[in-house]
C-alpha cells in the first residue's frame, strides 16, 4: 500500500479560517514522493494558500495528468474531488468539468513532461479557451517515474544524472504561454514559499486560465552539478522580477505602497492582486516587454520569477460561450427538454 491516510489530530488553539477550518483540513494523504522533492513544498504552499483564501473544500476540484506532479492532488484537501486522468490530457477533463459546473474552483497540477511533451497541444488550447483555472506546472526538467530522461524543459547544455548532455533547445512554458495569449502567467520556485503562496492565491483569483510554472527540483534525478533545475543552481540564478499579494474582497488594502513599485490589479470578484515590482524595468501588462525581458535575462543566465504577465479583461470560456450563470449540471430536466408540443411543431417543417 502506498496510500497512507494522515491521522487527523485537532490541536487546541489552532488557527481557523473564515469557514472555521484549520490548515489540517486542507491536507490530503501522506506524500509518496521522494524525501526532499520540490513538489511536496508546492503542496504545502497550496494547502496554506487555499486555507488562507477560505475556499470550501467541496467547491474545489483537483485535476491532474500523469507523472510525479500529477500524483500530488492526492496530497492536499482530502475533502475535494480529485481526478488523476491520463497523460497530458488534464486540461480537457478540466474543461469538461468546468463546462458542467462553472462554480467549481479548479486547480490543475501538471508537470513538464505532462504539459510540454505529450500534453503540449492541450496546454496550448486550454490557454486559448481561457478556462477559469489554476494551471500549475511542477517543472523539474526530468522524467522521474521512468528514471531520469530529459524532458522538453531541460536547458540546452544541462546534463543528466549519468552525464549525458542535452543538446536540444528547451520549451519555455511561460514564454510560450505569454505568446499564445495567456491572461495570467507567473513563475516561481518551490523553495520560495514567500513568493509562491501569494502567486497561487492570485492565480486562483484570476478569472481565466492562470499559468503558474514552478521550478521544482527532482532530488533523485536532477539535483546534481550540471543540472539547471537543481536547488543550488536555481537559488544561485534566481531573479525576482516581481512579487504579488492577494487582497480578498472583504479586506482593506492595508499595505502602503509607493507609486510605480506596487500596482493594484482589480479582479472581477472584487479582490485585488497587489503586484510588487522588484525590478523597476519590468512591465507586466505588455506581452512584448515581458517576452523581451525574459529572453534578456535567460541569455544572462537568470531564471526570472514573479507575476510575469496579467490581463484580467479578456473573457473566459463561459463568457465567450454565453453559458447560463447557473451550473449546467443543476438545470432541471424540464428546463432542458423542449417537450412533446415543440416536437410536433418542429416536425411540421420536415414534411
Amino acid at each position: 500500500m502506498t496510500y497512507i491516510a494522515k491521522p487527523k489530530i485537532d490541536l487546541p488553539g489552532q488557527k481557523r479560517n473564515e469557514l472555521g477550518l484549520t490548515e489540517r483540513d486542507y491536507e490530503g494523504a501522506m506524500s509518496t514522493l521522494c524525501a526532499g522533492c520540490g513538489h511536496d513544498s508546492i503542496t504545502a504552499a497550496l494547502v496554506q494558500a487555499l486555507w488562507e483564501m477560505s475556499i470550501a473544500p467541496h467547491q474545489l476540484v483537483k485535476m491532474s495528468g500523469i507523472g510525479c506532479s500529477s500524483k500530488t492532488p492526492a496530497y492536499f484537501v482530502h475533502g475535494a474531488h480529485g481526478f488523476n486522468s491520463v497523460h497530458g490530457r488534464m486540461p480537457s477533463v478540466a474543461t469538461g468539468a468546468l463546462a458542467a459546473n462553472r462554480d467549481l474552483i479548479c486547480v490543475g497540477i501538471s508537470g513538464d513532461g505532462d504539459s510540454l511533451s505529450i500534453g503540449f497541444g492541450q496546454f496550448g488550447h486550454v490557454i486559448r479557451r481561457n478556462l477559469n483555472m489554476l494551471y500549475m506546472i511542477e517543472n523539474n526538467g526530468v522524467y522521474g517515474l521512468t528514471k531520469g530522461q530529459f524532458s522538453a524543459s531541460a536547458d540546452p547544455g544541462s546534463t543528466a544524472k549519468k552525464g549525458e548532455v542535452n543538446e536540444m533547445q528547451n520549451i519555455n512554458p511561460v514564454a510560450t504561454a505569454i505568446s499564445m495569449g495567456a491572461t495570467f502567467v507567473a513563475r516561481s520556485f518551490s523553495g520560495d514559499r514567500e513568493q509562491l503562496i501569494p502567486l497561487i492565491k492570485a492565480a486562483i483569483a484570476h478569472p481565466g486560465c492562470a499559468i503558474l510554472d514552478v521550478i521544482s527540483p527532482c532530488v533523485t534525478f536532477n539535483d546534481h552539478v550540471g543540472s539547471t533545475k537543481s536547488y543550488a543552481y536555481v537559488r544561485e540564478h534566481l531573479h525576482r522580477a516581481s512579487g504579488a499579494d492577494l487582497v480578498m474582497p472583504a479586506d482593506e488594502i492595508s499595505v502602503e505602497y509607493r507609486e510605480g513599485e506596487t500596482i493594484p490589479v482589480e479582479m472581477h470578484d472584487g479582490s485585488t492582486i497587489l503586484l510588487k515590482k522588484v525590478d523597476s524595468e519590468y512591465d507586466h501588462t505588455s506581452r512584448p516587454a515581458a517576452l523581451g525581458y525574459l529572453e534578456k535575462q535567460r541569455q544572462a543566465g537568470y531564471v526570472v520569477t514573479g507575476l510575469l504577465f496579467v490581463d484580467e479583461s479578456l473573457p473566459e470560456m463561459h463568457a465567450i460561450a454565453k453559458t447560463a450563470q447557473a451550473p449546467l449540471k443543476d438545470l432541471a430536466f424540464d428546463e432542458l427538454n423542449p417537450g412533446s408540443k415543440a416536437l410536433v411543431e418542429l416536425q411540421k417543417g420536415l414534411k
Partner: protein
Amino acid sequence: MPATQNRINDFVLKIGTVNGTGSASANGLLMKALFRMGIPVTGKNLFPSNIQGLPTWYEIRANHRGYMSRSGRVDVMVAMNAQTYQKDLNEVSPGGFLIYDSTWPRESSLHRDDITVFGVPLSKLCNEHFEVARVRILMKNVAYVGVLAALMDIELDLIRTLLEETFASKPKLVASNLEAIMIGYDYARENFSCPLPVRAEKMGDNAGHILIDGNSATGLGCVYAGATVGAWYPITPSTGVMDAFKAYCNRFRTNPETGEKNFCIVQAEDELAAAGMVLGGNWAGARSFTPTSGPGISLMSEFIGFAYYAEIPSVFIDVQRVGPSTGMPTRTQQCDLMLCAYASHGDTRHPMLFPANPKECFEMAVQVFDLADRLQTPVFLLSDLDIGMNDWMVPELEWNDRFKPDRGKVLGPEDLREMDRFVRYLDVDGDGIPYRTLPGEDAKGAYFVRGSGHNRYGGYTEDSDEYQDVMDRLLVKWETARTLVPPALLSNAQRKTPLGIVAFGSSDGAVIEARDALAEQGIYADYLRIRSFPFGQEVIDFLHDHETVFVVEQNRDAQMKSLLTLETNDIADRLVSITHYNGMPIPSECVVQGIARHLDAEAAA
C-alpha cells in the same frame, strides 16, 4: 429494344451532377414533391470528399410498398456531368431512360440500344434566359426538375408550393426558379411523349411521416435527453450531429431575453480532448457526449479505457464510415463494431446501440444517456453515413412528457448525511454498479478518480486481490448491462424454417425487401434485428433455434459474426456471412443473391 414495364410509384431516379452546382436543392425539391404525393421515398447522396468540382450523385427511390434500401436498379438517369456520362449510361437498367444536356454533343460511341435517351439542351436554354453566369449554372440544375416533372408526372403545383416555402423570405428566387422549371417542363412536353411508363401517381399524403436524416435526429435526441455539454472535433460524416444539436439548442435552450445558453458546446483541438471533455463533464454531473467517426474513436481509445475502469458515464456517438485509416470519408460502412466493443488497452468491453433509421437515432440518443448514467460506463451509439447523412422517410418522432431521465446511482448531500462514510466502488446492491457523488456538492462525498489500481473503497492499491476484486465486479455490471440494453427484434417467416437472418443498423431495409423477394422464390427465413451489445438471451436463442443463420453486415471482415462467435458458445459453424463493403449502402439484391447462392451450393454438395 426491350419493352419498358409500367413502373408507377416503383422506380429509382438517379441524378449525376457536379459538386457545388446547387443540385442538392434541386434534388431535395424532387424528393419532397414525391413525398407530398404520398409515395414512400428515400434519397441517397453519393458524394465525393470535395467542396466543388467533382462528380456527385443523388439516388431517389420511390416505392409504393415502402422499401427503403437501394434496389440495385436505375430506371431514370439524369446525366448532367459529361465527365461521368459513360458510367451513368452503363448504369441504367434495360428498358430505362437517360436524360442529358444536349447543348454539347456526346460521342456517338456512347450509346445503348436497350434504353431510351432524351437530349435536352438545358445549358443553351438557360443561357438564353438568364444573364449571370453563376445563375445559369444553378438554373440548369433546376431546369431538369421541370423536365422530370413533365416526364414523370410530378405535380407542378406541389413544386411551386415547395419553392414558396423554401424561399419564403426571398420571393424573387421563387420566380426565377419557377421560370427555370417551366423551361425544362415545356421543352419536355413539346419534344417527348409525356408521361413515361415510369412515373409517379398521387397515392396519399404520407400523413404521420417525416423526412429527416439520422444526424439531425441524433442531435435532436441529445437535446431531448437533457444533454448539456457537447465536445467534438469536426469529422465527416458525424459533423451533422453537432450541427443539429447546436441548432436545436439555439432554438430551445437560449434565453430570449438574456441570450444565455443552457448548454455548452466545445469544439476541441482533437478527438482526444473531446473524449476528455466528455469524461470531465459527466464526472461533474452534466450529460456530456461527443459525436465522431472511426478515426476519432481510435484517438479516444485511451480515455475510453480510463472511463471503463474509473466508471465514468460517457456517451460516444460513432457515425461510421469506410475504413481503415481516413478511408473514404464520404462512403458508408458498418465497420467499427470490433473497435467500439473492446476499445482501449487492457480488459475492456462496452455496450453499443445500433439504430436502423433516423427514428431510432432519436430514440436511442435518449436511451444511450440513460444507459451511460445507470451503468457508469462508456456507451456507444453506432450510426453510419447512410443513416446519418441521407434523407429517410420515417414515422413522426414521438415524445412522452412523463419521461424522467435515469441519472443512475448518484448520492447527493442529503443521502450522504445519513451515511457514516462514502466509498466509491462498493457494490452494495449486487448489480455490479457502485454509487457515485458529484464534485461541488459535499466534502463527505469526495473521492479520488484514478485510472491506476484502486480497491472497492476507492483507495489506491497495488494489491493483486484488491485489483482483481474490482475487475471481477465489472463483469457483474456487464451482466446487468445485458438486461438493460434494447432487445433484438424478431420477425418470423410465414412458415416454420431452419433459416435465420441476423442484421443490424442500416442493413435492415435491404433484409426486409430481400425476405419478401426470397419468399416469392419459396425461400423463407426468420429475421432477428440486433439492436444492442451485449447480446441478450433472445439473440442466443435465435442462433440455437436455426440450422443456418445468415449474418448480413456492411464490412469485409464479418465483424458482427465475429462478435457473435466470441460472445456465444457453439454457434460458429451455423453462421454464414453476407458482407457488403464497397462504400455504397447495401442493396437488397446483395442479400437475395448471397442467400440464394449459399442454398444452391449446399443443394449441389
